[in-house]
Structure formats: structure tokens, C-alpha cells
């Protein structure tokens, strides 16, 4: 109940109690406000205003900074070599067409080979990516369907995964390791690259380590701990994800790339922001300084086609790319910078003209009152 009667005021006699000097109560406390800059709103302050002297140079400077940066990025991006093959196999002519309707556990895997020719040689280190399209790794139900605690090697989570993993939490009453839809849908095509030199197929060394973030590999993902290093024992009591042909401790032969810390797995688990994405698959290191990493010429890509995408109109690609200081090929950024820089500059010019022709400031001396 809001009452406008205040007992205090009745008690004080007058709300403006000072009316009676030395009145009842003898409140000596002065009611005079303090004379501080804060209370009197006189704090020293910087009062910037947009004047022609500040705005116009700002536009020109932004323009002059952005255009060269844009050109730089654009040139850098154009110097990057990139080659892309779509091996989904939807076209009947594609060698992979036969594998279009594979299922997860088809044994032996359907294989296909795609031959291609590189027109230009790839000079520096080459990165091999697989790309998926129309694959919603950013779907809410997909994104949350994991148990980071389990992936971090927490033993209790290993045997009792988070509810978020449903419906890939347990299989036949056994906890799934790694649980969840992300892990379950892990990309499992195998790609191999051969250089064809006069009908001889020379395999190109594909390095599978160093493709994941350091923090992911060393902090975020850990195998369960226990007696000994035998992963099979450590994963005892769990079962493999439904779609996987093999359990997680058989992803790789090397112990430091097996289990949860398998880098292919880690890369897959770092979900993509957009439904079309590429993920790093392998590295091709430059052998020596005399030869380019990949010479121009004929190559063939051998695919063990396990990963079905046709049912949801997905596409699969293999991309070979070199990188620069700013990453891979990225024409958007360069063009955007050049455009924005030009617009800024142009705007600066327009504003300058407008200011000179119509600028109102000079007549500001007489302020209407």
C-alpha cells in the first residue's frame, strides 16, 4: 500500500525541517548540498563533436587505409593455389556414382578413383580438405549432442554419458564412447592421392598429424585414464557409436593418435558454423626447396566411399590448397575491403562537396533566440 503520508514528516514537523532554526530535534546536520564537481555535475569532460575538420579526414584516412589493405588481401588470395573435386557421384558419369547408395557398414568399402590434372604446380605446403555441403553441423540438436566431459577423459562420464547425447547415449545398455550425434556421424571416407607419372602411380605422403588445434588435442580431448596405456582396456565397458565400423580405440594404429585424441576425430568434433564447410584432412609437406610440393600434372584420388550424403542432398568435395599469412583463398575479404575503402573515400568527397556548398556552420554565430 503506497501511502503518501509519511510519519517521518509528521515527526519532523516540516519536511523542509530547516524552517525553524534550532527547532525540535536540533538536527545540526546541514542540509546544504556539497559543492563537489560530481554532485554539481561539473565534472571535467571531453565533449567531442562531429565537425568537418574531424569527420572528413576520418573518411579519407579510412579510405586510404582500407584500399591498400584490400588490394593486398586480394593479391595474396589470388596467389593461392586451390583445386577442388566434387566426388559425391551424383552424375552418372562420375566414377563414384556406383557408391552413391553405400551404407555405413558396407564391407568391403566401395572404392572409386577420380583422375584429375593440376594445371599449375603448388609451390608451398599443401593442405588437403574434405568439404561437405548441406550438412547441418550447426543444428542446435546436433551441436549439443556431445559430452565434453567424456571426451576429456572423465571416467564416470565415459560410463555414464550426458543426457545431451540422446539418442546416441547408449546402445544395447552399454554407454557409447564417444556418445552423441556428432561423434556418431563422423566423416569416414578415406582419401588417398597419387601422382600419375607416365602411368606410374606414386603415392603422395599425406600427414595426418598436426591438423587439429593444439588446445583441442592437448587440453580438450583426452583418453580415459587408468592402469596402463592399453586403450582397449580403458574403454572397457563401452560400445562403439552406432554408425562406426570400429570402436574408438581402433581409429589409428599410433597410440598418440588413437582414441579420443585421434586428430580426424577432433577435427570432426569441432563443428562447423555453416552448412557448407571444409575440414582439414591431411597435410602435404614440401619435401625440398627445389621441387614444388605438387607439380603440375596428372593425379588420381582414391576414395574409400563410406560416408552417405546422397539421402539428404549433401555433397562431398576434396580440396587441395596452399595458404598464406591470412589463411586460404578468400576473395571476399579483399573485395570487401576495397569496396568499403572506396565508398569511404567517395563519401568523404561527397561530404566535402556538400559541406562546402551547403555547410551551415558558418552562420552559426547568430543563434535564434
Amino acid at each position, binding site marked *: 500500500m503506497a501511502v503518501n503520508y509519511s510519519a517521518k514528516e509528521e515527526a519532523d514537523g516540516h519536511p*523542509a525541517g530547516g524552517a525553524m532554526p534550532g527547532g525540535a530535534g536540533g538536527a545540526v546536520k546541514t542540509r546544504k*548540498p556539497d559543492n563537489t564537481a560530481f554532485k554539481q555535475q561539473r565534472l571535467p569532460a571531453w*565533449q567531442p563533436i562531429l565537425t568537418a575538420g574531424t569527420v572528413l579526414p576520418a573518411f579519407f584516412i579510412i579510405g586510404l587505409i582500407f584500399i591498400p589493405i584490400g588490394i593486398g588481401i586480394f593479391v595474396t588470395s589470388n596467389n593461392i593455389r586451390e583445386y577442388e573435386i566434387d566426388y559425391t557421384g551424383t552424375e552418372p558419369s562420375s566414377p563414384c556414382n556406383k557408391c552413391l547408395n553405400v551404407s555405413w557398414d558396407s564391407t568391403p568399402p566401395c572404392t572409386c578413383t577420380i583422375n584429375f590434372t593440376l594445371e599449375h604446380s603448388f609451390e608451398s605446403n599443401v593442405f588437403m580438405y574434405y568439404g561437405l555441403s548441406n550438412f547441418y553441423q*550447426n*543444428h542446435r540438436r546436433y551441436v549439443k549432442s556431445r559430452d565434453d566431459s567424456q571426451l576429456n577423459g572423465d571416467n564416470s562420464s565415459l560410463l555414464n554419458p550426458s543426457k545431451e547425447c540422446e539418442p546416441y547415449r547408449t546402445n544395447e545398455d552399454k554407454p557409447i564412447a564417444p556418445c552423441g550425434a556428432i561423434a556418431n556421424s563422423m566423416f569416414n571416407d578415406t582419401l588417398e592421392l597419387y601422382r600419375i607419372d607416365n602411368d606410374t602411380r606414386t603415392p603422395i605422403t599425406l600427414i595426418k598429424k598436426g591438423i587439429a588445434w593444439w588446445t583441442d588435442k592437448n587440453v580438450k580431448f583426452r583418453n580415459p585414464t587408468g592402469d596402463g596405456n592399453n586403450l582397449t582396456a580403458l574403454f572397457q565397458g563401452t560400445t562403439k557409436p552406432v554408425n562406426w565400423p570400429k570402436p574408438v580405440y581402433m581409429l589409428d594404429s599410433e597410440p598418440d593418435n588413437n582414441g579420443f585424441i585421434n586428430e580426424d576425430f577432433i577435427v570432426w568434433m569441432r563443428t562447423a558454423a555453416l552448412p557448407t564447410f571444409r575440414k582439414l584432412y591431411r597435410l602435404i609437406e614440401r619435401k625440398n626447396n627445389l621441387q614444388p610440393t605438387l607439380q603440375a600434372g596428372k593425379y588420381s584420388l582414391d576414395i574409400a566411399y563410406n560416408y552417405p550424403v546422397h539421402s539428404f542432398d549433401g555433397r562431398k568435395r576434396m580440396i587441395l590448397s596452399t595458404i598464406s599469412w591470412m589463411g586460404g583463398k578468400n576473395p571476399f575479404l579483399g573485395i570487401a575491403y576495397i569496396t568499403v575503402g572506396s565508398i569511404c573515400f567517395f563519401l568523404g568527397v561527397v561530404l566535402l562537396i556538400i559541406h562546402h556548398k551547403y555547410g551551415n556552420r558558418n552562420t552559426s554565430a547568430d543563434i535564434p533566440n
Partner: protein
Amino acid sequence: MERCAARRAPEEERRVRANAREYNEKFQYASNCIKTSKYNIITFLPVNLFEQFQEVANTYFLFLLILQLIPQISSLSWFTTIVPLVLVLTITAVKDATDDYFRHKSDNQVNNRQSQVLISGVLRQEQWMNVRVGDIIKLENNQFVAADLLLLSSSEPHGLCYIETAELDGETNMKVRQAIPVTSELGDTSKLAGFDGEVICEPPNNKLDKFGGTLYWKENKYPLSNQNMLLRGCVLRNTEWCFGLVIFAGPDTKLMQNSGRTKFKRTSIDRLMNTLVLWIFGFLVCMGVILAIGNAIWEHEVGVCFQIYLPWDEGVHSAFFSGFLSFWSYIIILNTVVPISLYVSVEVIRLGHSYFINWDKKMYCAKRRTPAEARTTTLNEELGQVEYIFSDKTGTLTQNIMVFSKCSVNGHSYGDVQDMLGHKAELGERPEPVDFSFNPLADPRFQFWDPSLLEAIKLGDPHVHEFFRLLSLCHTVMSEEKSEGELYYKAQSPDEGALVTAARNFGFVFRSRTPKTITVHELGRAITYQLLAILDFNNIRKRMSVIVRSPEGKIRLYCKGADTILLERLHPVNQDLTNVTTDHLNEYAGEGLRTLVLAYKDLEESYYEEWSERLRRASSAPEAREDRLAQLYDEVEHDMMLLGATAIEDKLQQGVPETIAILTLANIKIWVLTGDKQETAVNIGYSCKMLTDDMTEVFVVTGHTVLEVREELRKAREKMMDASRSISNGFSYQEKLSSSKLTSVLEAIAGEYALVINGHSLAHALEADMEVEFLETACACKAVICCRVTPLQKAQVVELVKKYKKAVTLAIGDGANDVSMIKTAHIGVGISGQEGIQAVLASDYSFSQFKFLQRLLLVHGRWSYLRMCKFLCYFFYKNFAFTMVHFWFGFFCGFSAQTVYDQYFITLYNIVYTSLPVLAMGVFDQDVPEQRSMEYPKLYEPGQLNLLFNKREFFICIAQGIYTSVLMFFIPYGVFADATRDDGAQLADYQSFAVTVATSLVIVVSVQIGLDTGFWTAINHFFIWGSLATYFAILFAMHSDGLFQMFPNQFRFVGNAQNTLAQPTVWLTIALTTVVCIMPVVAFRFLKLDLKPELSDTVRYTQLVRKKQKTQHRCMRRAGRVGSRRSGYAFSHQEGFGELIMSGKNMRLSSLALSSFSARPSAGWIETLRKKKGSDSSTAGSPSSAASKTLKV
């Protein structure tokens, strides 16, 4: 603390028996304990929470919270809503608890006051809260009345006692209460202890001036009325003690019954904000629906096939149902368009502004030691939008202090300030005031500047002597002499007090009166006049007279009154003198002084005998008494001899004309609503420059009938329109204008007009069929003065303007009669002045001088409005920019209600990352310094026109927010679509994307607040840079290894910050986004400044340019007053006091004891007088007699 009884059923009638607690207890009347507090320690939490959840916003967020607990819907963690909600609830609860704590404290203070209660025949000290209905309590002088009492007896004769009701109704004059005769004899405790009367009376109500009941005692019935009651809140004055029977206690007292619920005032921005929030809800639902449909389509087209990797949730079997769920999910995600922190932030800002008002040194009145006070903290920004001010006059514009400033005696005008050579001196070179030290009885506070008047007295000018003799005799003032020479006058009206005080200082000291005599010290000589009759003042007569017999036996009538009336009643021989005096009168009136004309008439003994006989018969006549008396008065007050005229200055409050001038320049219309007479009001209108002689015309509406009023209003409008027509020649004027057309015509009127309307005309003008007409006429005038208005009419006028003008109104007043108007207006301002506290209690703002109003409006109001508008614009902008990103992302994530950001970012964005900079702007921002807003009152206009925040501005903010959100999403999208990191790994992972968008958002909104902030104090710097730093600090902390190790499932973004923010591409993206978001805003603002600058921009710019130049000082032009022929008659007097004096009822014996403090007040007054004379002669050589001796020489 639960001492105060709970509520009972309403009673039909009240029975109270004195001295019978057991008997009274069975009725369970409320005790005298008051409780204004709402909670105690146990009830606080549940009651407060219950109250808080009655707020729609809080309930809404609770609802969201519940939604989030449903796993299929939950798109956000529960804490993203609960953290802000708890924060908001806690802040409010703490504030409520503090308020209530102070209420408890003040309740305790009042409840524990001491009071003397008669319990079983003995007076005992009891706390107020222990006083029960039916108790008899004793009050002493200057004590507060503890409860509503029936006055039983008092120290004064006839059981009279005096009370001051300032707390109750704001009137400062004393009121008389009288006990009924049977109880007035119960003077001591033993008699009172035996008193067992029973009172049967009306149930508790809030009517302050009404009481009906009956006392049953000793088998007799005695009717009781309000005259017998002492109400709680009054103060006993001039009465040594009195006894009263408690009738109503505590919450049943009239004081408490009157303190009803405060009507909650909302500002127009509040209302707009609520509308906008509703619109946003609508928008939110629309977006939810769009995205839900998108979801249903996506699940139907894509999701179904994608089930090999992502099966539908359990229980979801159709795309339609999935869409339905996703609708709620999106409502959760997108709810941040209406952030929970909006309302709290607005309150915080308003609180800050209120503190600035309280702290303002320039609104502190040193004399009264009162700072300004914002009693309501929720209306500040409305102070920047006021268009109409309704002002009370007395005590608000004027000080209600009357000063005798000039007089005209026998054709000679005194009172002009003169320099050495006898010329009229200019203002500012005042000589020393006249020295009254010859007169020991002089009032030291009285000042007069013209020594020639005193010389005339010393020279023995008979006219001057007679003039002051009249002033000392013809009045109804009561005197009180506490010790020798220390005279106090109790005048019913301040004018009269001023006149009698003037006479006192000039040596004609009114010393005391009895029902039949008046004792005056004339130049040291005590002379007692026999008072034969008082021909009392009333509104029709506009004059009062006394008939006295001098010690020599001559009978003389002294009369003072309005010039218009009196000049007609003079003897024809006065013609020449009249002409001179009239000139003087006009001169005085032109200076805004209140004038009275004085005259006398000698009466023949025989004529008087005959006349008084007729008077006696007339006054005892059973019918038409008034008329017959008036006729008799009229007869005797004729053929009088003119003595002269007085001019009283109704002192304006300091700085009133300047304030009004500035406020008028700021396009604020000022209406004066006063209970005073028309002449007085018009006079004040002139003296405070509301009315000027430059005005084209001042319309006066005084019609008594509906038709007259309508006619007068019509004429006024026609005149105004004629004038504007003659200016615009070719204007084709249609005879029959519709009322809407009329307004537009009237608004374009050239020339300045003013309207003066009388109370009875106003009553007609406010009737339903004429109110629009009246309003249009009045609004076309520059100044409006309503006089003789009742408190209710004041409120009606305010209501009328509120209803039709859609303008913000402010009412300012100081008395109880202004309360209704103060409560009705959008903003009520109380002057904490002399007239009690009722107005202040009802007001939203209070200070002690009218002139502070300009600072309140032009500085505080303007800033508050500006700050609030900027705050709201930015607030909506930042939330739209933040939230709408989710909408765009929806199209790329299968409408799955996946958030773009990390959940912690969503939780903290509004309460940590972006709250303080905008709060700092909302509290501290200034566009132009305070001196400038006084210098250029036009700066106030944007507020009145509602330019800074309206629906248009809102849409601009929203558009800007949406624009920002588009870029915020699509620029990173464009970059990330194909990009890889500089180590070849994928860049476009969800977490990196989230960090990039979040970082650029925080940077963009920080740059934007930097652009919006016009006044960068250290605090702003600290908050803006601090917020950015905090963002990065929290970001890195949240993404640190340590937190992840502890809660792997909560902090999934481990390592993300350092990995992402190390990428040059990410920074290039952020820079690009920032520039693209900000650049158009800068360009747009620059263009606006350059091509169409607002006045404030120009002022700011000029200030920048002229920083080194000395600021030119703009002085208000002081126009010399040109005298106009107006009568300045004024006399704020009420009828009936003369009769009271003649009857002797209100004579206090003690006041008759002139200087001797007789221990026996029962001593007759003649005896006292005799004593006095003896003592006077015995103290020869005292300054007074010495002075009188020198004067006689």
C-alpha cells in the same frame, strides 16, 4: 513490530466512553499506533516477491525461465535468464527493504512520542502508540495533537483553544476551537477522572472540516461539531494546556484517513516505452512465427532426410510439431530484444537524476535551509517536456509578505527613495533606511526609505498624524505583548499587518485592544479610544470602518477601502485632493503596488446615538439582517474626508519576473490560478511581467451567466482573429469554422493577448459544452490568469488542458488549496514555504523558491529528457543489433534456434558488457552546459515537441540495430564461408564464428556509445574502456583451460579465444564490420549537423569555437514600467473578524495585561490599564518617554 492492530470491519457508528478502557475495548477500535511500513523480517521475502511478480515484465521472464526448463524447447541455458532476473529482483528488493526500514524508523519515532494520559485519575507519561480511544489526554502549548480529540477543557476562558492546522490543511492562520460549555469546567484531573460521558459519533472518515456526534452525559445530550474537535497533526498554540477525549486514534484519525494511496504518475516516455515494448513483443512473435514456419518447412524438406545423422527428438513426429517447438525456442532466444534490464536501467538513471536535483547547490535556499527535493524519482525526464505551468500566486509567485512601501497624505506622496538633493533616486543607490530608533516600540524589521515622512510627523503635520492614527485604529489586528515593548501583531491578513506595523513604526503604536477600547501609543503617549463599532470588511463593500470615541469625546469614523468605492463616498470639498491622490494611486498601481484609500468622518453625538440604536435593532433583527446592516453601514460611510492612500508592496519571490520571462521564452505557457481577487491577481501579473503594457489586449471575463461568459469568450476570439485577419490580407475567412479549424486559426494569431477570468465565470467556462471554447481562447493567449478559483477548479483547469492539449502540465503551489492541482498535473511542484506542508507532501518535486523552477525545467528537466532519450535509443539499438543476428543465423542452421553466441555472452551482454557505458551516458550526459540552457531557452523546445524520442526515432534506432545485425552476421559469413586459418585448419567452426561475431558486436556497440556520448567524463571513459577490457578478460577467462578442467560440459569454448583472436583474418573481419556499421551513422550525423543543425548543436559548436572568447553575458532586458491606469486595490481579508472582536470572545486575558505580568489573569482589563499607566509614569526616563518628550518639543 506487529503492535498495530489489523483491519476490522467498517463501523456504522462509534461509541466512546470516557475513562472506560474496558468498555471501549469491546469495540476493538484501532489503537493510536500507526504503521506505514509494509513488511517485517518474516513477511518481507514472500510479500515482496509476490509484489514484484505482479509486474508484467518479471512474470514474463519467469515464464521464459520455465520454458527454458523444457529440454525440447530450451535453446539457452537456464542461467541466461535467471541471472539477470535474480539481479533485477535483488536490486528492487534491496531498494524496497531500505525504504521500508526508514518507514519503520519513522513509525517508531512517532509511535514513541510521549503524551500525558489520564489513567485512574493520575496523569501518566505514555507513548503515543499506547493511547487508546476513550482516554483523556493533556496537551500543552506547542505540542502536536496525538489523536483526534474531543476538546473537553482548556486553560483559556470559555474552553477556547487555538490550533495551527498547517500539517493538516496547510493554512497557517490560527484557528479557534471551543469545548462545549458543560465540559469546559472540567479543569483539573480530579474532575476529569470522574467524567464518564459517552460520545456517539460518525465512523472514521476523511472529511477534515466536518464532524457530527453527540455527547451523552448525565442524562443530557449535547451536539458536537467540528468546532469541538482537535485533529491529529494540529499544533496547540497560545494555549497553556487543554484536555481532550480521544475519539479516533491511529489509522482512524482524519490525518491518516486523508493519506490515501498516492496516484502513481507515469511519464509520457513511460507510456511510449510500454507501447513500444508491446510492439516489440508483437515483432518478437512475428519473428518467432516466421522462424517456426521456416523450421517446419526445413524439417519437412531437409530435416527428414538428414535424420540419418540427426534423428528427431523423442516425441517429435512431424515437422509441424517441430516448428511449434522451435517457435518457443526462438521466443527464448529472441527475448533479448526486450531486455529485462531495460526497466531497471531506466529506474537507475532516474534515480541518478533525482539525486542530481537533490544535490543541486543552486536550488538550495540558504535562507530556509532547504535544498530542492525530488520526492518522486520517476518523472524526471518529463520535466524536460513541460508546456503548461499552472501556478498558484500567494506564496508561490509572491512571498505573501506585505510591505508598506508608499503613501500619499494630503496630496503629498511619500516613499520614493530620494537622494541628497531630493530627486528620485535610481535603483541601486539606496540610501540608509529611515532610523526609527526614537521609537522603542518600533518593529526593527520594518524599513522605510523616505525620511520626509518621519519629518512630517515630527513637525506635527495634522494630516499625517491623522493618517497614521487611522492606520493604528482601523483594523482587526490582535496584539500580544510578551514582555515590555515586545509587541506581536496577529493580523488576519498580511496587508493589514503591514499597515498597522507601519503606523507602529511611525509612532502610532497599536498596543492593545479590548472589546470596547483600543489603546494606542501616539508618539509616546498612551491614548485609549473607545471602540464604538467595527463596520466589517466584506467583498461587496470592499472597505472597513471603525467608529471610535477619542478621549476628548469626539466621535470619528475611520474608513479604509478600495479607491473605486471610497472615492465616490467622499465629501465634495475633497475634489482637488482627490485628483492629486488619484494620480498617486495610478502611479502606485503602475508599480504593482496594492493600494487602499483612507478617509475619516466626524460624527455628531446625536446622529451616532440614533444610528447606533438603529444598528442595534438591525443586528438583532431575525431576518434580512445582513442587508439591513449593509444599508446602515452604507449610510454612515458617506461624505467622508479624504486622508490619503497607502501602497503596499506584495513582495514577489526572488527572481520571479526573470523566471517567468525565461520560461515564456522557452515556449512554456504560464497560467496563474489564484484564489485571490481579480485586481490583486492582475497586479501581480503585471509586476511579474506576465502581463505587459505591450500586450495587444487583456481580455477580462467576468460574466455571471453562461451566456455572458460565452459571449465574452466569443468576443475575445473574434478580436484575436480580426487582428490576424488584418495582418494576412488575402485570408478568406469563413464564418462558420469548425472547432478544429478554429484551433488552427487561433494558433496562428499575431500579437500578444492575455486572458483574465473570474472564478464564477470559470465555473461556466468549465462546463462540458463550453470547455473547448474556453480552452481554445485561453491557449491562444500568452498569459492566462484565473482568479477567485476554488481548489477544485484549479484541478479542473489542469485536467482540461491535459485532456485536450496532450501537453505536459506542471502545477506549482504551496498551500493546501493547491494540492488537488498538484496531484492532477503531470508534475506537481510544491513550494516548501510558509504555508505548511500539505502541498509539499502531495508534490513530486519541492523547493523553496519559485525561481528554482527555471533551473528544474531548463537544466535538470532538459538534461533528464535528453539523457533518457539517448539512453532509450541506444538501448533498443544495441539489443536489436545483438538479437537479430540470431534471426539471420536461423536461415543457415535449419531454423533450429541455435544461438550465434556463447551462452555466457548472452547472459552477460546486457548486464555486464554493455550496461555501464550506457548507464553512464544516461546519468551524466550533457549536450550544452547549464548556463547555455538558461541563455538560450529555445533549447527547451525539442522536449516539448517530443523530438528526441518518439516512434519515428524508435524506428530509426531499430532500423540501425537491424542494419548492424545484418552486417554483423553476413560479413563474418562472407569471410568464413571458405576461409581457413593461417595454419591451414578450418576457420569456420562454430565457436570461432561465435567469438568473432561477439567481439565485433561488443566493439561496434562500444564505438556507437562512444559516438553517442557527448560528455566524456572520467566515469564515461572508465566504463567504456572498462567494458571492453572486461569483455576480453571474461572471454579469455571463460575460454581458459582451468575452467574447462573443472566443468568440461559448461565451458566448451576452451582455447577458443586465443586460437581465434590470433588470426589476422578475424581482426580484419572485426575492423571491416566496425567500419561498415559505424561509417553510415557518422556520415548521416555529420550531414544532419552540417545541413540542419539543431539549436543545441549550434550552441555546442559555437562554444567550441569561442572557447577562448569571453562568454557574452546576456542580460534580461529590464523594461521600464510604464504606468497604466489600473486600480491596485487589494485586501486579502475575510469577513467576520470584527464581530469576534466586538464580542470579546477571542480576547485572551493574558494579552490584555500590557506590560505587567499579573499573576492573576482574572484581573480586569481596566485595572490592568490603570496599573500600566502607573508603571508608565513611574518609569520616567525610559527611552520611550524620553523620546516622546523630545518629540513634543
